[in-house]
């Protein structure tokens, strides 16, 4: 009996230890997956913001959006995997997502800087064009006004008074 009891206690302890290890492993896996998803979300957000800045600077972002879409798809898969308890899958998808967005960020920064530079050039050309245009309009307006005024006076001076008969 004591031998059987000893075996029983050992088996119980073994099962308990195994359960604790499994639960700890599972919790650690969940935490790792949650962190990986959080990191990927942060990277996607920063990438998206740079792409939006590039868009506001009128850069062509269609290729960047296509790659962001791939990253978004992976991030969604990571979140779904996490929800169903596939933590390894969640980490994998989140890391793949992060890798794609890192590339997007580099390209988006380049595009944004180029677009901002071009926007600056456009702005100065528009300012110069406006100044030149306004100067020409003011000059031509004055010129045409003086010509018109001269003709107007000449026409008035050439007028002859008419005598109207039959007045009371």
């Amino acid at each position, binding site marked *: 009996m004591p031998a059987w009891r000893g075996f029983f206690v050992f088996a119980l302890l073994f099962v308990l230890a195994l359960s604790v290890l499994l639960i700890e492993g599972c919790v650690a896996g969940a935490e790792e997956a949650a962190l990986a998803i959080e990191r990927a979300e942060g990277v996607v957000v920063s990438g998206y913001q740079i*792409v939006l800045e590039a868009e*506001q600077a009128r850069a062509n972002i269609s290729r960047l*959006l296509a790659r*962001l879409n791939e990253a978004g798809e992976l991030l969604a898969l990571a979140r779904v995997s996490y929800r*169903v308890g596939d933590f390894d899958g969640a980490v994998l998808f989140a890391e793949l997502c992060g890798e794609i967005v890192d590339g997007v960020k580099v390209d988006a920064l380049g595009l944004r800087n180029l677009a901002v530079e071009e926007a600056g050039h456009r702005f100065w050309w528009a300012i110069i064009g406006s100044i030149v245009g306004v100067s020409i*309009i003011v000059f031509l307006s004055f010129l045409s006004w003086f010509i018109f005024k001269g003709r107007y006076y000449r026409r008035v001076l050439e007028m002859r008074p008419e005598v109207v008969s039959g007045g009371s």
Partner: protein
Amino acid sequence: MDLEDYRTAFMVVSLALILIVVFPAVSLVVPFPSGVERFSELWVLGPNHMAEDYPFNVTVNEEYHVFVGVGNHMGYSARYMVCVKFRNRTQPLPNMLNSKSSPLSPLYEFQAFVADGATWEAPVTFAFLEVSRFDNSCLIRRMSINDVVFWVDSPSSWDSENNGFYYQLFFELWLYNVTSQSFQFHNRFVGIWLNVTAS
């Protein structure tokens, strides 16, 4: 017309010309309201990419196909999330009056970045893997969406008016807000009714 009238006319024409010439430079600094309504579209299409032949009478271990799509008219490249949720007739839908999403947890989700004026579409394949039927009740235990298996444990009682066990697969549209750095329910959802016919 006397000379004063002519002078006024000259000044008005000159000012109009100046405004036309200055407009391109001013428009680079001052954003003018476009007057265009900003909105997003959300749709579900049947398996043939048409608004017809939607799955309705469904059975166990059979795959069904639909397409979910989003159209962006927000004036910028928007980030969307489409949450796929599943409910029986007693569970809540989104509240459009309060702009509140359904409190049900999403099963599957999609994320998409859509350029202004562009659309995005994705296939959705779903199947019911484990369904229990009793006299006048039905319990869906497991279902799959795009090959991911979910435990749903959703009961439904017999609808004697419409003769069936009714469930709804619905899609909520969420829009990413750059200012608050979070997704917000975009007050749009679409869904399809499903009648579980046999287990």
